[in-house]
Every structure is written in C-alpha cells, then in structure tokens.
C-alpha cells in the first residue's frame, strides 16, 4: 500500500504521520504542496497536523487551495482513501471533502492531552480494527477543534454512521462530542486526535496502531 503524505509550509506532523504509516507497513512517498500530481499508484493520501500557512486567514483555508489540492480532490472523488489529522481535518473541511467546520475550542485555549475516544463505527477501513463501542486513548493537540455543523448535518452524520469517533469527555465543545467523521463513501476520514502519537508503549498508548493497520488491511490482495 502506498501512502502519499503531503507537506504544506507549516505542516509539522508530516514526519510523524510518515513514521506511523511506515511502522504499519505502508510504502510512504512525501509530496510537496506545490506538486500538481500525486505519485502513480497512490492508495492513501495523508494530510498531516500542524499549522499550514501559519493558520493565517482560517486554519486549513490556504492549504486547501494549494496546487496539490486539485489532485487530492480528484483522488477522493475517484474513491481513493484520504486521512486528515488535526490540521489535515481542517484542510479537508476547507476543501469541502467533509461537511462542517472547526471553530476555536470552547475554552479558547490550545489543549494538548490524552483523551478517551469512543469508536462510533467499525464500518470503515480506518475503524475496522477496533471493536464497536471500544474506548481508546489518543492525544489531542489543537486550538481549533470544536466541530460545528447545523443540526441537520450532525443528525445525518450520526444517522448514516459517519461519525467515526466521539469524545468520552468533550474537551473542546464539539457538536455531538464528534472527534472524527467519514465521507459518504467512508473513504475520507477527518479527525482531530492524533493516532500517530499513540503507536507504541513509549507514547503511553498504542491505540492508534489499529487505525493504520485497518487501513492497510483494506489493501491486502485477495
């Protein structure tokens, strides 16, 4: 499985995401945001955390209009997998690949700490490695993670089982305690918590591994 990790100016979890994909057994190609095509044979696009374009204008807004954006949108529309973490989630919303918006945390402060997530659906490659309703420990680190959408959108996401993860204790004011959501075809996942920071005992939790393993499992021949 080949993962293309995009680096925007200001991305700072691009290496971490590449390491996580490699640990899970993927072949990783790093892609510069000024490129206009994805590497041939890209299976998954990874949009990393960080502060693309310094969070100027709105988090993710400028990155969503980077030269590589068109290729990412085409990849998603063709049924390709996309994983956006933290700032990557913000970019996916700004690109219109997922619905809703991420506002400033309800407490108005940056928050970095491990949180407990509920696995809200196992019906996606990203979440297939977890048990339905399982609780996992994964860190958050963001200033703008307060997921907000109109009531109808939230109800639709919930009704269609497109909420991937919810917070056990809502840290940022997100509607419906939503921590991560899936696209209609369940192949685009945006989430605020950082599974790439929960890959091994040294991280204090290895609960993020199953996400990458599940994704790679979707590409096992046969």
């Amino acid at each position, binding site marked *: 499985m080949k993962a293309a990790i995009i680096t925007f*100016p*200001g991305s*700072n*979890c691009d*290496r*971490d995401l590449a*390491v*996580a994909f490699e640990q899970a057994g993927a072949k990783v190609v790093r892609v510069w945001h*000024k490129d206009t095509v994805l590497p041939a044979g890209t299976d998954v696009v990874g949009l990393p*955390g*960080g*502060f693309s*374009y*310094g*969070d*100027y204008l709105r988090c993710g807004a400028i990155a969503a209009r980077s030269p590589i954006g068109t290729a990412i949108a085409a990849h998603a529309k063709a049924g390709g997998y996309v994983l956006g973490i933290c700032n990557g989630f913000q970019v996916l919303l700004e690109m219109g690949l997922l619905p809703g918006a991420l506002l400033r945390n309800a407490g108005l*402060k*940056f*928050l*970095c*700490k491990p949180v407990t997530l509920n696995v809200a659906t196992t019906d996606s490659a990203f979440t297939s490695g977890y048990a339905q309703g399982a609780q996992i420990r994964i*860190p958050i*680190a963001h*200033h703008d993670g307060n997921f907000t959408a109109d009531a109808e959108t939230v109800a639709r996401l919930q009704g269609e089982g497109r909420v991937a993860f919810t917070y056990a204790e809502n840290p940022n004011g997100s509607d419906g305690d939503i921590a991560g959501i899936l696209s209609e075809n369940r192949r685009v996942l945006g989430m605020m918590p*950082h599974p*790439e*920071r929960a*890959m091994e005992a*040294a*991280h*204090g939790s290895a609960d993020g591994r199953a996400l990458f393993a599940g994704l790679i499992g979707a590409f096992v021949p046969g």
Partner: protein
Amino acid sequence: MTDPALTPDLIAAHGLSPDEYDRILEIIGREPSFTELGIFSAMWNEHCSYKSSKKWLRTLPTSGPQVICGPGENAGVVDIGDGQAVIFKMESHNHPSYIEPYQGAATGVGGILRDVFTMGARPIAAMNSLSFGAPSHPKTPHLVSGVVEGVGGYGNCFGVPTVGGEVRFHPAYNGNCLVNAFAAGLADADKIFYSAASGVGMPVVYLGAKTGRDGVGGATMASAEFDDTIEEKRPTVQVGDPFTEKRLLEACLELMASGAVISIQDMGAAGLTCSAVEMGDKGGLGVKLQLSDVPQRETAMTAYEMMLSESQERMLMVLKPEMESEARAIFEKWDLDFAIVGETIAEDRFLILHGNDVMADLPLSKLSSSAPEYDRPWVETPPAGDLPDLPTIAPMDGLRALISAPSYAYKGWVWEQYDSQVMGDTVRTPGLGAGVVRVHGTTKALAFTSDVTPRYVRANPFEGGKQAVAEAYRNLTAVGAVPLATTDNLNFGNPEKPEIMGQFVGAIQGIGAACTALDMPIVSGNVSLYNETDGKPILPTPTIGAVGLIADIEQIIAGLPSEGDLALVIGETKGHLGQSALLAEAAGIEAGDAPYVDLDAERRNGDFLRANRALVTAATDLSDGGLALAAFEMAEAAGMGVTLESGDIGQLFGEDQARYLVAASFDQAEALMVAAGQAGVAIAMVGRFGGDTVSFGDDSAPMAELSTLYRSSFAKAIGAA
C-alpha cells in the same frame, strides 16, 4: 533625513558612559557617525558584551570529554555517542515579556530555537522557566495567561515539543517577570555549523524575513527630544511569526545539507550588527555590507535603523560563491527572502554602505574585543539569621497550604497549552520531574530539566547556586538519565549595586563548584541583569537547564507506584526548614539559611539510584515541599493514597538535599536496603503507597478532596477559573 548631533544626552541615551564614549573616540580617532554610535551601543551593551559578568563567567567549568563546543557559539554542543550531538541553550526574554507578554514570550522561544538550528540542529525539545509576581498582584493574571499563550503559540506552530519547565510566583517579581526559554536540538557531531567566517571575498547572504523598524534602539527611545514621533514609528517589542521560523528552519537545514554554508549566525539582539561582527570577528576578517540590498518591510529605513533592527526570523550566512544558485533555489522553494548583502574582506573593517554613502567604517575587531569589561565592586551576602520561633503547623494544614499555592499546585493549566508530543518521540510529558524525548530512530533518549530555588539563592548565594545544579542533577537521575551538561540563565538585579553583584558572584561560585563536582559542565548560557523596578530587585534567579542521556530507553525510570508499594527515602533527612516552601506558604516566613548541599552525597546517592534502577518502580527527587509534597504528588499521579509514618514537620517538609523518594515492592525494597548498606548510602523506609487516604502520622485526609484542591488551585489563583 539628517542624522542628529551627538549630544551628551544622546550618548547617554545609548547606554554609553562618558568613559565608554572616550574609549570610542580613542579607538577611531574621530567623532563617530550616528550609525556608528548605534553600532557601538549595540555591541557594548550589557546583553551583547557581558561587561559586568565576563570576569566571573570565565571561572565556570566549561570542558569535559563530552563537550564538543562550550560557551561562545550560538549554543553548546555535547556528544551523546554514535556520532550524534545535542545542542542546547537557555535565554531570557524578561523585559519584553513584561511589556507585551504574548509577543515577548513568543519571540523568546523563537530566539532560542534559532540559536539551536543556526548550528545545524533540528530542535527536539523546549522548556520554559517562568517567574511571576504575587498571584494577587493586578498584573499577574494578565502576564501569566499572555506568557503561557505566547510560549505555546510559538512553539506549537513551529513544531517543537515543550516537555518541561517551571512556574513560580513571588512578590519580588511583581514589577519584573522572568521568561527563560530553553531549546535543545539534535545533529550529527561532524555536521555542526559555526559562526566564524572564512575566506576573503565570500558573499554575505541575508536569509529569512524582511527587516522592519521593530525593536530599533530601545535606548534611544528614552530620548524624547530626539524625535517626538519615534514611538509611533517603532514598536519596542518585536513581533514573532513562527510560520516563517518553521520555514526558515527547513530551508536552513536543507541548505546546510547541500554543503553551501561556510558559516551562519542568527540575527538576535541588535540583528545585523551583532551577527555580522560576530562572523567577522571569529574568522579574523572584515565585513562590507550594502544596506540598499537588505530586504526591507518598510520604506525609507535609515542605516541606523537597519543596523539596529531586531526583526525576527532572520539569518546571516557566508556562502560558497559557486553554490549561490542552489542556495537561492532552496529559499525560493520556502518563499523566503534570499539576498546577497555584502562580502568578507581582508582588512579589519566593518564597512557599512547605504547606496553610495559610507554610513560606518569601523575597525571590526575592536567592536567586540575592545568592549569594556568591568570588575564591579561586590560585597559578600551576610550570613542568614536563625529561624524565628515557628508556629505550630498541623501536617495536613501544611500540605493544603502548599498544594493550594500556585507555585506548587498542579500546573496542567499551563502545560496543556503546550504541544508536548509533536515529533512523535516524547516519552515523558511535563508534570513529574524531567521531560524525556527519544533520539529519533534510536533507542536512546535525552532528559531535560530546569531548576532553581530563588529563596535559597537570596539567603545564601553560594549554597543556592550549588542547589540549583544539584536539583537538576537529581531530576535527571530520577528518570534514570546520566547528567551530561548544563546551560545557565542568570537573572539578577542591578550589578552596579555591590550587594547584587555579591549575589551574582556567590551564585556563580556555587554553580561552578556543583558543576565541577557533578561533572555537568556549563556549555552555554545567558546573563540578564538590571531586573529591578523602582529600585526593588527580583530574587536572584540563576536558572539551570540541564540535559541527561538515557543510553537505552529500557533503562528509564518512569513508572508510578503500585498499590502497596513501600515508600523509601534515599539520602539523609535532618529536617532543614530554613527558606522552606512550607514556612513561606503556610506561615509567611522566609527566613533562615538555605539547606547545605553536600556534593559528595549528591554524587553518591545519584550514582546509587542509577545503578539500582531495577529495584524501584518510581522515583522522584526531593526539593521544595520536601517528602510530604513529593509523596503526595507521586500518589496523586498514580490515583491512590499514601501513608507516611512520621508526623514531624521537619521530617515531612524539611528540604535537606541529596534525597530521592522511591517506591518499591517489598522484595525490591529489601534488596535496595541491602545495596544501600553496601554502598554507604543512607536509606529509610518512610511509609507505604495505596488506599484512598493521605496520612502523615496521626493526621489524615481523603486523597479525593486533596486532589481536587491540588488540581483546581492554579487556575483559581490567577483568576482563570
């Protein structure tokens, strides 16, 4: 614009004494131009020249087999084996943070990160040592929230994990908070970049952000008659842009890897002036600059303004001329400015051209080597008096007083605002002792701590200086690390007062003695003097930042006590209460002498703990708050209670040095006590972890209640809850 006449007032406003001005006349044999006056003022101020402190800094131990580069470069370089090096330094940004807390703290972080990556290292860890005034002081809440947000705002965006630090409160900082920022980076030991230029006719290249008027000549601003509109034009505090710094980091590391860089220096205080002089001086060369080629953010900037601007996120570099186009391409990729602004020359000249005009023409080597150096008069700090009669303090009241004081309460409010895990190698996040970061792609790890107990230093500068180093040594030891080296950030009041200079001298002597005894040489540092408001000095605060190596991550001591574990104290407890946190917080008494630091015992007990790490499940150093506070913190983190047998205030809250609290199973404890006997190390069984109650002798309280107090007090104290 015509340059102003050099009146005695203008000279004084540049911080130059009449003697110093005479020295300038002597060196150049004529009256300086306005730009030249600015250059001398920048090079000869306390911050750049260390004129009051140099004599004493020379006495510090700075070498050892592990030291690759000691003080004098942008940061210290220390060998960590396998051809790798850790590069680190700590630096203050006190005055700007008091004026504008967010930007002051943010640019403090930005500056120290630049010091590290200028040397070719990728920053891997940051810490912050913060000192604020009384929580009840009207300015304190604003300063705390601004500084913490500024530290986080810069470091989080840049992408370096903040893994440790300190936050203290004391009325002596009411008019002068301290923000001491530490950064460490990682590089291959044979790929370190230095500032000395080499080769004549080599291009001098300007990199990074554009130059504006920010930070220009704080000294001249005091002179109102010089220009009535100056305040409108020139904000005194620089504004940071971590997004630019992140790109500057990536571009610099790419450029260094390309082999194009001969030497490089970041532009910090007095930007272009200090960086150009530094590169020329170290390389024994002259430098010619053409200011018309400097990328400028504002129009009609004068030579004086460009030479003294402190705009952030800028670098100066001497480049191999044949690699100019590769170098330019890298900076264009990251959308950063790249401009050739001058060249190295053979003569000993600092020649500044602006268009066709010569704005400065000075003997370069004299700018730093002929800087004044003072042997300031000093008096030894008088011995501390005895403790007064102490009021009776019930043990649990003592604990409550400590954990409800913001200096000792749980500080999640602070560190949760810092990204502590970016880069994916953080093994131990802030909260309990040293932070630990794995060396990427290896099984090695580095431990980081910053320590000082300012009350001790005020009472007894020599013992207080020793103690700051000893506590850092213990914090590193308590996570299983071998202490490697130290950076010192020396914050004091006005050195022209003999009693302040006496504190400085005493503290330096203490730091030196401890660094020698504990084999932790000083490899970098920073001095911040004149920390006074209305003649009232801060507590003398020589912050020690220290780095230790864990050769294999398996050897880390990072656990928490298990239910039923025994509590043991390594080291001797006498019950020293002078200058203790307990007396300060529970009784308002700041009196008596600082605890004596037995450096042999420190070494012996530290070596013992590292050698017997397999016999403990958890360890922490004992410092302010003594055994009682440490046992409470360890139990609280583990979500259980703790019972200490003694109800004696001295035994519980005494701050005797060279001690650790460890948790161990019964079998481990037995073996540990045997080993201690053989090693001649004092050890005592003092209690047991477990249950849901905290008991000190006959006094007890539910852990749940104490935990709530501990976790809510910080935000409450600064009015944020």
